[in-house]
């Protein structure tokens, strides 16, 4: 267990000569003197002040990846995954020669020929160039095209090999079930190679988790008869990629339940692809969300900001319905929760919310009419189906009513009509529309003065917009970009609520490409903070050429913040404290409180 970046992660046991507890306490009240807080007695014993005692590490852009080797000897490190792997256990030192036309290694030669893989090289190269633009700049939430792309590719195509991230699902007999890029059937040989690698290691009573091949990582996940594989050259941490495979598996369960295992027990030849027919778009949309939706690594959901009373009104009518035999009632706007309610003792895992909303949003047919569909919530019960009634109130806002009864359609339709009437009457729907337009928290609006904490007025979201002529020293200092002290963006995750809030993206994190890069940086930060064995850590301050990243984990919350790379450390820490205070001040509007099923 090695962590190449361990110096950058400082937890309780900071590596420098340990200050006495008194010193630490002293440093809680940040010693920098430019804050109105310093000097004032801290009678409020909230631990909301970040310690400034952690080590600062300058990392260059080629920051080494975080520890990837799991337990000793479980990761196979080989340069190639073609026939070469076998050479490891067999003394024959023969490697695939380029003259072998048949091995279908990923990094190998043009292999598994199929009658239809004839594509002219020129065409392929041109296509790659075209696609790189797509991948680099506009492969984001905005410009994402649903559905499977590049179906004509297989593992012999140069363009296919150049794709940055591949995801595969296959059966333990090597039959392909899903591939993100390319045609599953044409990839049958490749799929067989993957199975052979996994099964071979399994046969030795071991498990392969990760193979590194140059810039590529091959991550394996075995779920009974289902094998999942990710091949990536994105430098994401192993843990993140493995979690993504877990989510893909969860998405598959949501569509089919774990009963598929029985099919494989009865018949190892079982071909699962027909059962998943038409769900390509669900998987590709989930995979796309791995590059923009923080819920995929935070395991928390986010709420649409709404006035407390508005969310209460929505929650009340959902509760009403839940009491009439609905297991879960969830009102959402895109990927954000407006309100959700569960029947007694039933609780909904954030991952299930993510997978369910992805399934509903990705399936075009839900938009056109009210629907009733069997679905499985893998974290609730992976073995069995529930039934989901889905109805869109407008283009972004939809209601999901989950029940155990396959005959409840008309009852749920009645429930929906009741809910819709209430939502219209109490103008919840129009409030939702307005919130969509207004957006959420903006770093530019971070309240300057944190002092009037116990003051009478509680600031509301969106009312902090400072007059432009206000004495905003920070802004002058940082050229009007971002928030105070060079704050560019933050994510706050409440551990108790299983919810997070993310600030709106604004300059300079404005292009989809920058947003994706920041997202990846957060993801890496998250993984390093939660690393098994040496984690969890409490604080991390990391400066590279792109950002200053600050992470702070307490029992109650996790804060991830990105600053200008030139930001002052003490000011950044101070700003994080203010962000936390701000979140506390507006938590009524940005979080779903009380009514959540998590409180049972």
């Amino acid at each position, binding site marked *: 267990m090695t962590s190449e970046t361990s110096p950058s992660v400082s937890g309780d046991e900071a590596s420098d000569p340990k200050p006495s507890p008194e010193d630490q306490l002293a440093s809680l009240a940040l010693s920098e003197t430019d804050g109105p807080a310093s000097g004032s007695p801290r009678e409020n014993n909230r631990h909301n002040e970040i310690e400034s005692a952690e080590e600062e590490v300058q990392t260059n852009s080629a920051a080494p990846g975080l520890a990837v080797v799991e337990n000793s000897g479980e990761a196979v490190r080989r340069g190639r995954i073609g*026939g070469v*792997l*076998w*050479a490891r256990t*067999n003394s*024959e030192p*023969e490697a695939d020669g380029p003259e*072998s*036309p*048949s*091995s279908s290694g990923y990094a190998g030669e043009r292999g*598994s*020929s*199929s*009658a239809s893989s004839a594509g002219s090289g020129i065409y392929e190269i041109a296509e790659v160039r075209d696609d790189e633009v797509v991948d680099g700049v506009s492969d984001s939430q905005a410009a994402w095209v649903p559905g499977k792309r590049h179906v004509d590719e297989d593992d012999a195509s140069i363009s296919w090999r150049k794709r940055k991230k591949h995801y595969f699902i296959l*059966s333990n*007999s*090597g*039959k392909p079930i899903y591939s993100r890029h390319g045609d599953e*059937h044409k*990839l*049958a*040989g490749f799929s067989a190679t993957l199975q*052979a690698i996994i*099964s*071979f290691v*399994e046969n030795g009573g071991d498990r392969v988790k990760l193979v590194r091949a140059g810039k590529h990582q091959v991550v394996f996940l075995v779920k009974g008869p289902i094998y999942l594989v990710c091949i990536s050259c994105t430098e994401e941490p192993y843990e993140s990629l493995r979690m993504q495979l877990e989510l893909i598996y969860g998405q598959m369960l949501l569509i*089919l*339940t*774990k009963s598929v295992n029985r*099919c494989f027990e009865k*018949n*190892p030849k*079982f071909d699962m*692809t027909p*059962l998943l027919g038409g769900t390509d778009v669900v998987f590709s949309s989930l995979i796309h969300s791995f590059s923009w939706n923080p819920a995929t690594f935070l*395991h928390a959901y986010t709420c649409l900001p709404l006035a407390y009373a508005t969310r209460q009104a929505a929650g009340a009518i959902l509760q009403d319905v839940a009491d009439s035999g609905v*297991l879960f009632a969830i009102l959402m706007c895109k990927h954000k929760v407006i309100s959700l309610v569960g029947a007694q*003792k*039933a*609780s*909904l*895992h*954030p991952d299930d919310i993510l997978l369910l909303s992805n399934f509903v949003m990705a399936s075009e047919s839900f938009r056109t009419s009210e629907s009733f569909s*069997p679905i499985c919530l893998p*974290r*609730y*019960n*992976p*073995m*069995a*189906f*529930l*039934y989901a009634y889905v109805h869109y109130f407008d283009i972004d806002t939809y209601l999901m009513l989950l029940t*155990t009864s396959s005959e409840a359609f008309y009852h749920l339709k009645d429930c929906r009509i009741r809910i819709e009437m209430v939502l219209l009457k109490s103008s919840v729907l129009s409030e939702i529309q307005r919130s969509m337009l207004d957006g959420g928290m903006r770093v530019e609006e971070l309240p300057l003065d944190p002092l009037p904490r116990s003051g009478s007025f509680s600031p509301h979201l969106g009312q902090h917009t400072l007059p432009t002529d206000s004495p905003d020293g920070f802004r002058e200092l940082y050229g009007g970009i971002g928030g105070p002290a060079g704050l560019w963006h933050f994510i706050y995750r409440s*551990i*108790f609520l*299983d919810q997070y809030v993310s600030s709106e993206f604004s300059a300079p994190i404005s292009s989809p490409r920058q947003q994706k890069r920041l997202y990846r940086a957060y993801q890496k930060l998250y993984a390093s903070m939660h690393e098994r064995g040496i984690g969890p850590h409490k604080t991390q301050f990391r400066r590279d050429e792109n950002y200053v990243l600050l992470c702070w984990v307490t029992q109650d919350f996790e804060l991830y913040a990105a600053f200008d790379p030139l930001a002052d450390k003490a000011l950044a820490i101070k700003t994080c404290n203010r962000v936390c205070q701000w979140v506390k001040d507006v938590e009524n509007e940005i979080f779903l409180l009380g009514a959540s099923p*998590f*409180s049972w």
Partner: protein
Amino acid sequence: MASRRRMLLKVIILGDSGVGKTSLMNQYVNRKFSNQYKATIGADFLTKEVQFEDRLFTLQIWDTAGQERFQSLGVAFYRGADCCVLVYDVNVMKSFDNLNNWREEFLIQASPSDPENFPFVVLGNKIDVDGGNSRVVSEKKAKAWCASKGNIPYFETSAKEGFNVDDAFQCIAKNALKNEPEEEIYLPDTIDVAGGGRQQRSTGCEC
């Protein structure tokens, strides 16, 4: 019921080392032949699309290594096979005698649900060698063995000349189709909340 959807067939090729398994694959998939012998390590994987009776098949061909030291890979490789191709060299008696071992080993390791009717195909390869003069296993003898094992289809092939190779694989697709299991309706359970306690507590819950 069985629709027009594409079917994927996992085909395992077995036989002694040097009988020409890889050459047969190369001839079939790539229409190429090389006189140079190069031992397969572990297995090679090829795909080939075939059409049979208006249906499209993808053959996922597992070209395994014949050397005994690779036999420990068996279970991993044979699981979920739709068809098994046994290859011998008509000029080497031992390779024919070993067919029985290969067949039994496969049935043990793959443990198909209906071993009696599992689709095998036997190929007698290298009939071109020396104009057939060095041949030691007669067609009659081979066919008799195939008949005794439940009428396994038998083909005499030449990977070098491409003789009979396509026919043999056409037969593989045909056999697999015959063996296609009836499709069952997929019917998982539904949660019974009233039935008590089958629910799983969500792990993210902080209560």
